[in-house]
């Protein structure tokens, strides 16, 4: 037995409202950079649907994950080591940008620059890849809420696996959201596909990371991951993936997606597992056995034998205790309501899901029957093949039994708790019908419905003797790092080359620069970065907009320079002559009186800044 600890997550799908808050906050934290515009470490898919990148679950096409070779041994689905190396010059199974989507922005400048004309100016979509005008035809969640159904939905590879009859009935039946992050697999095929060995699993907490200094851009991991959760940063030429917010986890904080989840449906905790049994568990012949075999890899943290072995493996006592209190362990093992996503990929994923009961409840409710009655719900689970078959393709390699069992437990809990909430005597036969004790069922209800922050996230911090070195705790001078304080900006070999600056250093330089320069940052210079962290909310942030040439080529004063007047609103320019279409900027009246008839700062009647007024006094708002 070789005990290892794994940081894992469970998501309760019944509670997901598909708000995408998790995706947005994750993006703000991690992928809000050039080169990762198309990257969503966390994305939320509507099921049924094609997913992101589209049809990623079709492993006949994308060849992600593992498979058993002729001799029954585990092998990468995309081929053995030699084949992997021979196809390195052009990776045959890598999704193109079309499969993700071409990221874009809008030509907002046109809204302020367009000359006076008959039609309202529009902001055209511009590709962030080619810089050209583009038609927006796909995105990370184009088929959100079954948009484009049934045509788009029918391309769902999971749907393709279930029978035709089911498909036809499908549309009236159900829909749910599936938030996804990297699974931080026990047997990660991304790491196995990496020719440089740059992707590694941390031995302390099992988080799978890409060493940015060791990645050489062979982009084989993108093919290797069946969940398509490794992304290629096209600017830096390196692979990037979900980090499980390791800087937060190390100090005991949940990931950003969990912290901000509106439905409070994410749970984080430790799982102890036996690393010696991972290979064997991933190699079982029958795909439907994979759920059971992965469960067998997990170790009971309450077992004294396991505790002894954990100690021998260097896992500290507070970590074992955290594993005992882990909501993940409870949901997977004690209540047995969590299931892994696509166990048939054989990577032993560690983000598990509680399948949604709501589709069943909805159907029962629509029939006018009592949708909180366990008898009705059980019957519906048994007869409603569609949700069960679909969920089984997602969570159990097509085996309906475990899904049915989970749904029945959830249904029983619903029914049992209703009696309690209505002040009636609880009915012990309900938990008994799904093989649970009354107390256990109540505890499960507490965990699923009421659990507070510290019960949902049981994250033992890394050890104090290490903590002072963690970047975000500034108990040491943050400028003391190898190579000394550097400047932000680009290295000599393109974006991001050169030594990485810690964020604290970048902020330091930005503040210093702001305090010591007498000119605003020049956005044309590659060193300038606009830092909203230091923006005081008054006027436009320095360096955000390039200086605009006046009629005689002289630079227009930056908005900052009229800052005395406290101007924040865009103002229409007065007295200027509309130029021909597309001629760019308009003439500015001399004397700096480009704010129209009013003096600076005064808001005359019908004055500038009011919507609808812009056409009358000039050529539109400008800043």
């Amino acid at each position, binding site marked *: 037995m070789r005990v290892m600890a794994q940081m894992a997550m469970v998501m309760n799908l019944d509670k997901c409202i598909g708000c995408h808050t998790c995706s947005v906050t994750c993006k703000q934290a991690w992928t809000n950079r050039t080169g990762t515009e198309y990257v969503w470490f966390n994305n939320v898919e509507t099921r049924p649907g094609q997913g992101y990148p589209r049809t990623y679950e079709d492993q006949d096409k994308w060849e992600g994950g593992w498979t058993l070779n002729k001799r029954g041994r585990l092998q990468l689905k995309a081929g053995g*080591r*030699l084949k992997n*190396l021979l196809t*390195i*010059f*052009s*990776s045959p199974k*890598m999704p*193109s*940008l079309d499969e993700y989507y071409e990221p874009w922005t809008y030509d907002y400048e046109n809204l302020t620059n367009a000359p006076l004309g008959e039609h309202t100016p529009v902001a055209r979509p511009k590709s962030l*890849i*080619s*810089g*050209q005008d583009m038609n927006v035809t796909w995105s990370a969640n184009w088929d959100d809420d079954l948009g484009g159904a049934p045509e788009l939905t029918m391309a769902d590879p999971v749907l393709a696996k279930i029978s035709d009859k089911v498909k036809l009935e499908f549309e009236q039946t159900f829909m749910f959201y599936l938030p996804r992050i990297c699974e931080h697999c026990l047997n990660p095929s991304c*790491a*196995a596909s*990496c020719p*440089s*060995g740059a992707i590694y*699993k*941390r*031995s*302390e907490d099992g988080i799978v990371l890409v060493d940015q*200094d*060791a*990645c*050489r*851009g062979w*982009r084989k991991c993108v093919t290797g991951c069946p969940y398509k959760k490794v992304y*290629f940063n*096209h*600017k830096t*030429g*390196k692979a990037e993936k979900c980090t499980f917010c390791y*800087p937060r986890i*190390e100090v005991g904080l949940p990931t950003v997606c969990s912290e901000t989840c509106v439905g409070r449906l994410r749970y984080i905790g430790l799982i102890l597992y036996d690393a010696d049994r991972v290979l064997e568990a991933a190699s079982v012949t029958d795909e439907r056995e994979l759920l059971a075999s992965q469960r067998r890899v997990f170790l009971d943290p309450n077992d*004294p034998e396991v505790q002894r072995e954990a*100690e021998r493996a260097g*896992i*500290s*006592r507070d970590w074992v205790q955290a594993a005992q209190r882990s909501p993940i362990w409870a949901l997977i093992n004690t209540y047995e309501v969590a299931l892994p996503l696509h166990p048939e990929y054989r990577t032993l994923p560690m983000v598990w899901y509680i399948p949604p009961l709501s589709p069943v409840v909805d159907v029962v409710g629509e029939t006018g029957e009592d949708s909180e009655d366990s008898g009705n719900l059980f019957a519906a689970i048994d007869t409603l093949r569609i949700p069960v078959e679909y969920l089984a393709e997602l969570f159990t390699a097509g085996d309906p039994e475990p899904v049915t069992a989970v749904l029945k437990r959830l249904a029983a809990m619903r029914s049992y708790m209703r009696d309690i909430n209505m002040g009636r005597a609880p009915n012990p036969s309900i938990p008994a019908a799904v093989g649970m004790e009354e107390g256990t069922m109540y505890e499960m209800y507490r965990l699923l419905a009421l659990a507070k922050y510290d019960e949902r996230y049981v994250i033992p911090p*890394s*050890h104090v003797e*290490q903590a002072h070195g963690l*970047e*975000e705790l500034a108990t040491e001078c943050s400028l*003391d*790092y*190898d190579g000394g304080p550097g400047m932000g900006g680009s*290295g*000599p*070999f*393109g974006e*991001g*080359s*050169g*030594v*990485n600056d*810690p*964020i604290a250093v970048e902020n330091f330089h930005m503040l210093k620069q702001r305090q010591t320069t007498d000119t605003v940052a020049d956005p044309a210079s590659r060193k300038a970065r606009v830092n909203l962290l230091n923006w005081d909310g008054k006027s436009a942030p320095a360096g955000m907009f390039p200086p605009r040439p006046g009629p005689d080529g002289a630079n227009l004063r930056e908005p900052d320079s009229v800052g005395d007047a406290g101007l924040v609103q865009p103002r229409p320019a007065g007295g200027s002559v509309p130029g021909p279409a597309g001629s760019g900027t308009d003439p500015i009246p001399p004397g700096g009186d480009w704010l129209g008839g009013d003096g600076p700062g005064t808001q005359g009647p019908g004055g500038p800044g009011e919507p609808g007024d812009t056409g009358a006094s000039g050529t539109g708002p400008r800043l």
Partner: protein
Amino acid sequence: MTPTADIILWVVIPYVCLAFFVLGHVWRYRYDKFGWTTRSSQLYESRLLRWASPMFHFGILAVFLGHVMGLGIPKSWTEAVGMSEEIYHFLAVSIGAVAGVCTVLGLVLLIYRRRTVGPVFRATTRMDKVMYLFLAVVIFLGLWNTIAGSVLNLGGHYDYRDGVSVWFRGIFLLDLHPELMAEAPIGFQLHGMTAMLLFALWPFTRLVHVFSAPVGYMWRPYVVYRSRSDRLGSRAGRRGWERVERRRETSTRL
């Protein structure tokens, strides 16, 4: 007595270039591990790349092996194992021509792709352009030498294994023969000189990826485990401040 110009051209410049090559790589590896990548552009375009890149790479690797044979192995050795001049010549030209044509075709396609595919062109740095210029010149001159010298027999017979090769090996054996290069046909002189300049540029381009060719992948375990304490946060350790190795606190009693 060799003229000074020849010494500069065929002794000084080669050593300077090779010094750039070696020290440049050391410097780049230390300073810019993060920029050490192929800068793959497959995400932007893969239809052309699917053909161009393998064609170029397999070609250039074969060409490289050919150079190891032709430049590295003295004529006396191949003759000692009984390989006649004719057989050697035939092998070199036939295999070399196939590899050369693959390389050139691949290179032309790659450059065509770089220029015409919008996103790929946008992602092309100035260094890329310089690199492609030198790469193309070196490769075309090399192919020209093979075709003109060995196939068309323009300008009489020249056996580079008695000339260029001896000079090249001499650079590493400190047995300098600038006069051999001075006598070589102009095509060989230009090929040799541009190749030296390419070597000097090498560490400062994306070509550094060649030195990361991941052959170790064949033998390493599939899944790599690493300890977090190798590195704390996003900060690299400071020299001289390595952590004291210490076992994590564990309970003595359970």
